[in-house]
């Protein structure tokens, strides 16, 4: 096993362990922290493959914005709920997971070696319109959420 494969396997193993932490902990605050660690390790796997633009986006948007808000919300609602698996949802989960595993085993072939591509330099040229539209979507959705929040009586 070469260095890159070992690095991916190690980061992946820690990511799975921290996601198991999300499942096992009873405190929402720690669950949110474990989730942030998982996302950070996923970004680390992207960094191993030198796809730095996605690393920056995951770190800034997913961990920096959404992750921190989730941690703050989880700290506010820091309950310790009793765990109960809803049996009605077990069958759909098994079916979906079986389909995903089948697709992974049967269809995924070849090696992973990301092609060198100027991701950062392509953002202001190739992807500028997409980024503008996506920022507009976020602003529109947040404005709608604020309007809805102001309408609700406490």
């Amino acid at each position, binding site marked *: 096993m070469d260095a890159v494969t070992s690095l991916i396997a190690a980061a992946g193993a820690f990511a799975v362990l921290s996601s198991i932490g999300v499942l096992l902990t009873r405190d929402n605050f720690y669950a949110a922290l474990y989730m942030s660690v998982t996302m950070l390790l996923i970004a680390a796997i992207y960094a191993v493959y030198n796809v730095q633009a996605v690393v920056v986006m*995951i770190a800034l948007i997913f961990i920096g914005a959404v992750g921190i808000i989730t941690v703050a919300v989880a700290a506010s609602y820091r309950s310790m709920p009793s765990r109960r698996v809803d049996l009605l949802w077990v069958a759909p989960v098994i079916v979906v997971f079986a389909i995903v595993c089948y697709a992974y085993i049967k269809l995924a072939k070849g090696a992973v070696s990301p092609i060198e591509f100027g991701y950062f330099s392509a953002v202001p040229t190739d992807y500028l319109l997409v980024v503008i539209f996506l920022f507009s979507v976020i602003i529109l959705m947040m404005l709608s959420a604020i309007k809805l929040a102001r309408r609700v009586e406490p």
Partner: protein
Amino acid sequence: MISQLAILLSISAAILLIAYITAISSRDLVRLLISLELMFGAVFLAILPLFSIAPTMAFAIALLTIFTSASELLVLITAIILLDKRKKGIGVDKVAVGGDSL
């Protein structure tokens, strides 16, 4: 010898399964939100092999996924706070009925 693709997809599937189990066993909406974010993490890992085949398309998909999922999660956080304001709690059983009240 285990290939890098197999390792990546195994990790992605494992995180997805853990997120599913967290979602079906969660009793409050914050835990549900956290499980959704884990599912998006599994999706990000599944996109990674696409960077070997078509990097421009993979980057566009990654951009779309990150931005749309982030906006969706932010709206969901707002919905959790609104639900707490209206129902005085964030338990899943409070939204099990759904819809408008007549």
